[in-house]
């Protein structure tokens, strides 16, 4: 068994997840170092969301271990899992998932509140950083898709999570907004954040340090974008 290594943020060890007879994930293993930006790619139904959910503590692996920041997520009890979600990860979803009756700033404060205490001034600064300083009291229904996703990004970052999990965050955005969100992700990456980003788009995948490709729940290959010419490829059965 691999012991937790200090700057390893993610260690997936033979992670499998079955829904009934369906193998959504099949013995997936990989590691992510602190500060890395990983793109998770693969066709629809290949298990990308399932993988993200397991790492984010929303699902439990059927077998194998998913260790995030030294914590074996699958072994956590309900209470610890709640703490884990609030402390360690920041989620960004394709459908934005903002609370419809809360304003932009309140949506950010909500994550603060679940983590510790709501701090409106800090929430405002987080929204200003994503360019929404003039949209603080708007409800999600009064914001464009791109603006909503930037609120979600501010929310994901507000508690300084170890790991940012973004599941097709630009899937519902037009090109302009996609660029805005990607710019923000790039900034986060250069600021040293560890990012797991699910995407269909090879263009986006290429922005990452590595691309993990899934097919039918299996890890098909891991591609290092930095020296893609060398095709440093890990084949995986």
């Amino acid at each position: 068994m691999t012991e937790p290594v200090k700057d390893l943020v993610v260690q997936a060890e033979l992670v499998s997840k079955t829904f009934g007879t369906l193998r959504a994930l099949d013995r997936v293993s990989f590691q992510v170092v602190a500060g890395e930006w990983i793109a998770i790619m693969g066709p629809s139904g290949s298990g990308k969301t399932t993988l993200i959910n397991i790492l984010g503590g929303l699902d439990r692996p059927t077998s194998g271990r998913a260790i995030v920041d030294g914590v074996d997520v699958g072994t956590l009890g309900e209470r610890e899992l709640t703490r884990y979600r609030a402390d360690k990860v920041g989620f960004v979803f394709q459908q934005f998932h903002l609370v419809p009756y809360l304003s932009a700033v309140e949506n950010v404060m909500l994550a603060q509140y679940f983590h510790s205490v709501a701090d409106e001034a800090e929430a405002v600064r987080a929204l200003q950083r994503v360019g929404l300083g003039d949209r603080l009291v708007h409800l999600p229904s009064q914001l464009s898709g791109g603006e909503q996703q930037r609120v979600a990004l501010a929310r994901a970052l507000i508690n300084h999570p170890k790991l940012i999990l973004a599941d097709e965050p630009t899937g519902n955005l037009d090109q302009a907004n996609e660029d805005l969100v990607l710019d923000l992700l790039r900034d986060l990456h250069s600021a040293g954040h560890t990012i797991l980003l699910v995407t269909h788009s090879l263009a986006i995948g290429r922005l990452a340090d590595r691309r993990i490709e899934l097919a039918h729940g299996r890890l098909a290959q891991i591609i290092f974008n930095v020296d893609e010419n060398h095709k440093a490829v890990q084949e995986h059965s």
Partner: protein
Amino acid sequence: MFLRIVKDSFARQARRKLLTAVALALGTAVATATLSVALDVGDRLGREFRSLGANLLVTPQADTLPLDIGGVDYRPVDAGAYLQDADLGKLKTIFWRNNIIGFAPFLDVPVALRPANTSAAAPPGVAAPPAASSLSPITSPSGGTPAGRATLIGTWYNHAVQVPNGGGIFRTGLSATDPWWHVEGSWFADDAAECVVGASLARRAGIAIGQTLQVNAGGLTLPLRVTGIVTTGGQEDDAVVAPLEIAQRLSDHPGQYRRLLVSALTKPEDAFSQHDPSAMTPADYDRWYCSPYISSISRQMQEQFPAVEVRPIRQIAEGEGRILTRVSALMWLVTLAALLAAAVAVAATAGTTVLERKSEIGLMKALGASRLLIGAFFLGEQWLLALLGGAAGYAAGIGLAHLLGQQVFGVSPQWRPILLPVVLGMAAAVATLGSLVPLRGMVQLDPAPVLRGE
């Protein structure tokens, strides 16, 4: 932040929330009304039923069998034992003295009556000296027709009784034991030569208010001014009711009486009160002694008056207990049913609410909200609704209670502010009860499928 979220969320789904609040308001309105009445019902009904008569009869222990025909004592005045009216204040010194709401001593004297000569009006005012009239013939040669024989019932209407050991003055008499007796005109004054005449007797003998009757017993004739005509539906309708002192003088038994009716607020008889006190354990005996059962109050009265016999007037006492218990039980049942119905209505709307909120609940869980917090958000809103609905229900219920009180008992129940927090608490409990099942689903919701959009 918690309140901010609850407040923001509260404005949503206004129609469904209105429905929940209305359900809670209706339930608490009924609960408030029935509780107001039920809390009053013990006292109120106690008094209502008391008007069927006193519930305790006190007689001398050594008394001979009464020659009682149609409720009138036909024994010769010399037969049987008597009790001293000077001792009556002691009744207000027993353990349950505050439950003794009134008593009236009685002394019946067979008398001969005739209307006084209108021209020879009796001396007004108090007790004419016996010598002046004692020699008057039974039938006046100049006066009207003799009315014949009747019973003079001597009692108190509103008499001041000195309670021993500094207990002050207690006013009692028929006004306390039998307040429903209907008198046309007015009652006699306890210290005057006055009387009221039973309606049947008055009709038969043509006696009218304002007249003076010559009342004769033994060798004594007293003039009594008629102040009123009394209708009771009982023996009094054929009798003359006069101050006890008059009867005592006519029968030559000063300071004495023959039977005492006591009206006491009592606890309805129950299984425990049926036990034989002499066979009880000391602890049970204490409990029995310190409960205002008719039997324990009787026992305490006997401790004060060793020579008396205290008999509960059973039929009334038991009927009273049964009715009281049933009415109270009915009230509680109605309250429970109303609250349950409200809980069902709350559950129905809460179920829909949870279905609608699945995605935000899943999201909050993904963001690290604890189960406790998820539940608290929802219950916070439900309790806010309970507060609003409960307050509205309380207001409506007070109105309903007045209506109900007026219609059923003829009196509005007392306004009890203490009911407001009780009712709000009930509304919150009902809202919680109605939310339990949806709440469970909410707390146990698995976030992953919801966030996938399933």
